[in-house]
């Protein structure tokens, strides 16, 4: 049940056709893991918390640096040196005290990924490197949790949504390839756009409206202000999701509907 304060806070989105009180209640029941509290994570967290996603788990192992502040808008100048998850959860609680925020300061590894995501409804990829993205992809598939990918570089970004056993996964597209981990160029507006696209996908999935970016890789080119959708298909021999081939669409772990 939504409280009178929640009904007022979310009035404008409850007014949207297809959302309504029922959609808002689904958001309230949802538990979302946001892996990464940087440029993408800032945007995803701000908009999911503002929209009333009931429980959010933030995971990041880094501290705020001055060089983060051009894009990681949940962290401010006064937060330099503090743990990112602590800095972020403080702001998010002030933005919306009606949402539960859980902060985990730690590195995601093969050994702990299941512990971090199991029992949660959705995972958002807000990482800054491919190896951890593949860990999240695998963890999402193994635990049957929808996974929302995003990545940025300069004025460019990409997004894709993954439904385990049903649609192409990150490894189907990128086949486990990585790029050397190094300082990447980026302007804040790029993760703002991609993070908002990821948050939109999460909200749509939870409420059960619209069409998702599944079997599609969205490419955003800010310099030419162009969006391109590339069709992608499942690889039946994929190391991460091939074993789910033929199993058909499994029922999502949590049914918000």
């Amino acid at each position, binding site marked *: 049940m939504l409280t009178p304060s929640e009904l007022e806070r979310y009035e404008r989105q409850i007014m949207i056709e297809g959302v309504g009180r029922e959609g808002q209640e689904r958001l309230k029941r949802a538990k979302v893991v946001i892996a990464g509290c940087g440029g993408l994570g800032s945007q995803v967290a701000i908009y999911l918390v503002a929209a009333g996603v009931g429980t959010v788990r933030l995971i990041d192992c880094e501290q705020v640096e001055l060089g983060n502040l051009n894009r990681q808008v949940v962290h401010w100048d006064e937060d330099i040196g503090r743990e990112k998850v602590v800095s972020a959860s403080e702001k998010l609680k002030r933005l919306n005290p009606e949402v539960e925020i859980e902060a985990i300061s730690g590195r995601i590894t093969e050994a702990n990924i299941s512990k971090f995501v199991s029992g949660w409804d959705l995972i958002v990829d807000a990482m*800054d490197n491919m190896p951890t993205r593949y860990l999240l992809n695998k963890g999402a598939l193994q635990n049957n949790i929808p996974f929302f990918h995003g990545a940025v*570089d300069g004025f*460019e970004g*990409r997004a894709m949504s993954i439904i385990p056993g049903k649609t192409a996964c990150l490894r189907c597209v990128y086949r486990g*390839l990585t790029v050397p981990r190094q300082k990447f160029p980026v302007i804040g507006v790029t993760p703002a756009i991609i993070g908002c696209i990821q948050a939109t996908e999460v909200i749509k999935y939870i409420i059960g409206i619209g069409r998702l970016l599944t*079997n599609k890789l969205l490419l955003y080119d800010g310099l030419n202000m162009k969006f391109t959708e590339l069709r*992608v298909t499942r690889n039946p021999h994929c190391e991460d999701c091939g074993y789910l081939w033929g199993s058909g669409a499994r029922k999502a772990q949590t049914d918000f509907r």
Partner: protein
Amino acid sequence: MKSIEVRLFSSLRKYCPNLGNGEALIITMEDEAKLGSLFDELKIPKEKITVILVNGKHEEESYLLRNGDRIAILPIISGG
């Protein structure tokens, strides 16, 4: 002869500077042409190519190109 549609993305666009982002390049190839020979045609160093999708699927260099194939070539981007 067969006609192939190729799109280059991100930093690979510099190999076809006159082509708009997302715009397709139409290339005519010999009947026996394979995916690997397309890279020579485009003059893209192989080490620059990371992700190649043929009609949305990954294919090896030995893949025999077919008329009307739609190919997307893109580097990985990994920032967050």
